[in-house]
């Protein structure tokens, strides 16, 4: 069962039609996209707008720990931080989710309880995606059964770069299927492109359309394990894709830049771009997320600066 809108059913029928469609997408003007992203990054956001942006950015954070050295204790600590990022200030909002490896989902779920903070799990042989399909699906089901609310999958970049679009498409559809829970609800599916490996903005645009047609709820830039990770121009291209996709099909898809966003200043640049490129409806944790860990501390420091009037320091916030 596919969730492709009827208007695009002809496209996803065969490898050839998929290729024809994706290669028929207008090319990205690289210089233009970079200049536009740089231009939007110069906007000055101050006072009440800044306070709003900081709180919004905190609500959009997928607080992430994806290390080989993750322990249950670390995941619990991270979950506590996600629920109450600034324990000294009850007006500080919670983050959107914590993002962990599948084996940590149960621990995160238990720690988060009914707080409303989601648990996102990376699956499908993250970060390389180099495994057989049934292993990827088992990985996904495992995370969903453990209670993950959101699944972050990686696409097969090798197949994508080799032009085997149907293969990538089918894989996303299959993972989406594996995200179903017995109660009929879906775990939300985020599709990671690893844009640092896709080489061109044209490829980013093609991957965005491919994933959206295959039923992604979110499209995500990177795993955070490859440099360059999220950049403003790449996110700009993806925001254009979700905007155009909604114009064509009426369906809204979210965007998640991840990796390399470390300062509140950067986060606000992204928010400006979301507003200007995709539109105001995307300025919501349901449609835009930041995959980050260190970003949260900087957001909290800026927030403290705004409420107390003095610059804060890293000594006053937990590590990670």
């Amino acid at each position, binding site marked *: 069962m596919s969730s492709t809108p009827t208007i695009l059913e002809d496209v996803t029928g065969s490898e050839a039609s998929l290729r024809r469609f994706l290669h028929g997408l207008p090319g990205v003007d690289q210089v233009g996209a970079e200049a536009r992203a740089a231009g939007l990054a110069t906007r000055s956001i101050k006072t009440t707008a800044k306070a709003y942006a900081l709180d919004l950015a905190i609500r959009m954070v997928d607080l992430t720990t994806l290390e080989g050295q993750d322990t249950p204790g670390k995941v619990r600590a991270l979950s506590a931080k996600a629920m109450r990022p600034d324990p000294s200030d009850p007006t500080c909002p919670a983050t959107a989710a914590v993002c962990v490896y599948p084996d940590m989902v149960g621990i995160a779920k238990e720690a988060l309880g009914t707080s409303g903070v989601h648990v996102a799990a990376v699956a499908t042989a993250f970060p390389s995606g180099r495994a057989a399909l049934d292993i990827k699906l088992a990985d996904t089901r495992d995370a969903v059964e453990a209670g993950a609310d959101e699944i972050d999958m990686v696409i097969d970049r090798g197949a994508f770069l080799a032009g085997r679009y149907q293969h990538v498409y089918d894989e996303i559809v299959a993972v989406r299927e594996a995200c179903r829970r017995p109660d009929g609800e879906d775990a939300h599916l985020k599709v990671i492109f690893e844009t640092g490996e896709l080489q061109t903005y044209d490829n980013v645009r093609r991957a965005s359309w491919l994933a959206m047609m295959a039923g992604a709820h979110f499209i995500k830039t990177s795993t955070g394990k490859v440099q360059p990770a999220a950049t403003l121009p790449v996110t700009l291209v993806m925001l254009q894709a979700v905007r155009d996709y909604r114009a064509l099909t009426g369906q809204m898809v979210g965007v998640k830049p991840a990796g390399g966003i470390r300062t509140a200043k950067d986060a606000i640049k992204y928010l400006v771009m979301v507003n200007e490129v995709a539109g105001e409806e995307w300025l919501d944790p349901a449609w835009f997320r930041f995959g980050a860990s260190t970003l949260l501390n900087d957001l909290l420091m800026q927030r403290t600066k705004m409420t107390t009037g003095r*610059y804060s320091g890293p000594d006053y916030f937990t590590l990670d």
Partner: protein
Amino acid sequence: MSRIDVRKTYKLYIGGAFPRSESSYTYEVLDSKGKFVANAALASRKDARDAVVAARKAFGGWSGRTAYNRSQILYRVAEVMEDRRPQFVQAVSQSEGLTASKAGAVVDQAIDRLVWYAGWADKLAQVVGNANPVAGPFFNLSTPEPTGVVAVLAPQDSSLLGLVSVVAPVIVSGNTVVVVSSYERPLPAVTFAEVLATSDVPGGVVNVLTGSAATVGPWLASHMDVNAIDLTGVAGDTELATELEVAAAENLKRVRRAPAAEPDWALDPGLDPMTAFLETKTVWHPIGV
């Protein structure tokens, strides 16, 4: 044919680089007779913030170096200053209105002071540390540790000797520093920054802001990531000094209080400028003696 003037607009020194002020403001620097000399960057609170971040980043590396190595680097600063002596003499003479020979003497004193402090790097622990006799079979040892990031408001009158006399004692023990230069006489500080940039001092250990202590000072005094502040630069302005001390109390900064008037920098500084920015770490060794 007359040569076209090379008009200078100096920049700040933050994290080993020379950025313009984030606010992009500059101000005119006049010599002692009121004649235009150059433009200097007017540091804003955001430059102070960036400088603190740079100083914090540099602290681990600088404080982790051996005292011997810090000593060598300070000596190297003195060497490079000696090489650029004529430039310093001109800057001091222009800013402070001294004759060339008097300015030369001031520059010599500044260089000598650096050499003097360089010698202290690996001797401080012996002088202010101790092996403490305690009532138990323990080996008990107190050693001095750097305080952390220190904000320094440099003296307003003595633009070079005063500057060196407040910066060197802070960094010799492993602290990193954000220094606000004299407002009306910033050019010796700018040249000093150029010396630091070319003399093995890691970026971020000394950050030089040119501008007003009254504007930038309160932000540094209230900054939660600054561990200590030296108020020498607001000597005589009791109202501002009090305001800064109150702001500094929020995170229990160490404060070196503003003197009633700027001291005579030619005098022997003693140990106080160094010990003001040290913490004492005491370790109990449960091995018996």
